[in-house]
């Protein structure tokens, strides 16, 4: 009888590997961090319940969306989208080569890798407000400054995600090419990038969408945009117009997502 016996002939291996002292310390630290964080943020489910009536009141004031200014709002949305497209595209073109350097283990240059990762981190850390200032000083108020601000923002975001997507890819095909003397750069373009392509599309289209959503920065550089309209609407308690704007942006976001899912499908399924 060869049915699998319920008792093993061999000693069962241990369930857990004994973690190293360092690993144990790190786990403990991680848990402590979480407890500390939750402790500090004043959780209270009770409060949540009490607020429902006022919330209903607030939402009722947002309804129905006002379509009075739909013309000028659509125009603002389209202008914003225009700047978002060119800014995001610039950012992506900036991020691609740097992200290849930034991806660990791809080019073998540790120094350039650290520099590009640092650069991406810097791009993200310096806030919108300061980028606005820098580009207004550099190129003056207007859409160009807005485009550049969006580009830098996009580069910081996309660069990081591009790099890590390339790190996550199965290295087998690239190694097989390199075994035949193919340069790292060729192997990256021939095998790493095709494999990371769906992730690139996700990241790029998210960046585009993000640029539209966070277009308040365009207002800061005097380039108008839908973000400014939304800010004015909420600042002036014009919630019905705000609701319209949010719906407009929501529609755009859905369209961009649809485009992304179409492109991803083509890449994944061929």
């Amino acid at each position, binding site marked *: 009888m060869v049915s699998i016996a319920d008792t093993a002939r061999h000693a069962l291996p241990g369930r857990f590997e004994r973690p190293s002292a360092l690993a144990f310390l790190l786990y403990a630290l991680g848990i402590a961090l979480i407890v500390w964080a939750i402790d500090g943020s004043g959780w209270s489910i009770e409060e949540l319940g009490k607020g429902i009536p006022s919330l209903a009141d607030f939402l009722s004031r947002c309804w129905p969306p006002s379509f009075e200014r739909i013309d000028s709002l659509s125009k603002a949305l389209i202008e914003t989208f225009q700047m978002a497209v060119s800014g995001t595209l610039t950012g992506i073109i900036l991020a691609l080569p740097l992200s290849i350097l930034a991806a660990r283990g791809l080019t073998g240059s540790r120094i350039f890798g650290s520099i590009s990762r640092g650069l991406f981190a810097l791009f993200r850390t310096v806030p919108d407000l300061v980028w606005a200032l820098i580009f207004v000083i550099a190129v003056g*108020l207007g859409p160009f400054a807005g485009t550049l601000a969006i580009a830098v923002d996009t580069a910081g975001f996309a660069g990081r995600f591009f790099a890590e997507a390339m790190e996550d890819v199965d290295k087998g095909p690239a190694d097989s090419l390199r075994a035949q003397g193919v340069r790292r750069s060729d192997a990256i373009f021939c095998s790493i990038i095709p494999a990371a392509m769906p992730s690139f599309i996700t990241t790029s289209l998210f960046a585009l969408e993000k640029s539209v959503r966070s277009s308040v920065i365009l207002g800061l550089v005097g380039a108008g945009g839908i973000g400014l309209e939304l800010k004015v609407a909420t600042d*002036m308690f014009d919630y019905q117009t705000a609701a319209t704007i949010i719906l407009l942006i929501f529609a755009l976001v859905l369209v961009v997502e649809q485009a992304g899912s179409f492109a991803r499908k083509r890449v994944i399924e061929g």
Partner: protein
Amino acid sequence: DNFKLAVTDVEGLERLQTEWGPFKAELEKATGHTFEFFPVNNRTAAAEALRAKRVDFVVTGPAEYVVINKVTQAKALIGLSRPDYFCGIVVMANSPYTKPADLKGQKFGMDDIGSTSGHLCPSQLLTDFGVNPLKDLSGITHTSRAVAHEALKRGDVAAIGVNYTSWLKNRGKDTSVAQGSFRVIARSGDLPNDVLLYGAHVDQAKAEAIRKVVIDNKAKIAESIISVGGENEKFKGMDLVAIEDKNYDPVRKMFAAIGHPQYSEFVGE
């Protein structure tokens, strides 16, 4: 009682948001109530919190008071007076503009929409000088002060509307140009005080009582703000005064100048 007190991004009270300890202690000692402070840098959030009875008192600016009063029926309690609270219109000294009327057809930089001294006041000022800010200019850029300042220097905007005192201070920090390279071509009258207001849900008698104690102990309370030292020395000269809603009618008028007449109806009219 335990009251919740929000402080919106009131000009000049930034430090209060982080260093309000002594002030709070003095206030609590004087009134016998406890206060919880929340720095809220957005008046819409403060207003909605008031409306939802999530906050009881708000310290805010004049324009903010007007809209919050309209949206939530909150009432003014105490004015926090500030010396030299007015606005001006600044151009570059080497520019051809010497009076507001010269700015017709030019670009103008201002603070966020709805800011008292950075938007409402300069708009009113232009109107007073016969320039309709909505029609006669070739565009208003609402941006941060730092951006507006740099844009003025570049010539991207012909003029900027500023809170006069803070502009003076900021001009001092800009070492890239001589202080004399700017020209002020108009100044407004003093603006109404910043306000400590109370929500419609707060017991009126208690509010009145607080007003009385604070006014009675104003020297001590003001001192507590200044005593923190350092940056807070600039509050020297502040006063706490009892105020009335009608003091803010001039501000209501300004909302018409910026094209939001829904806030310019005077209460009782």
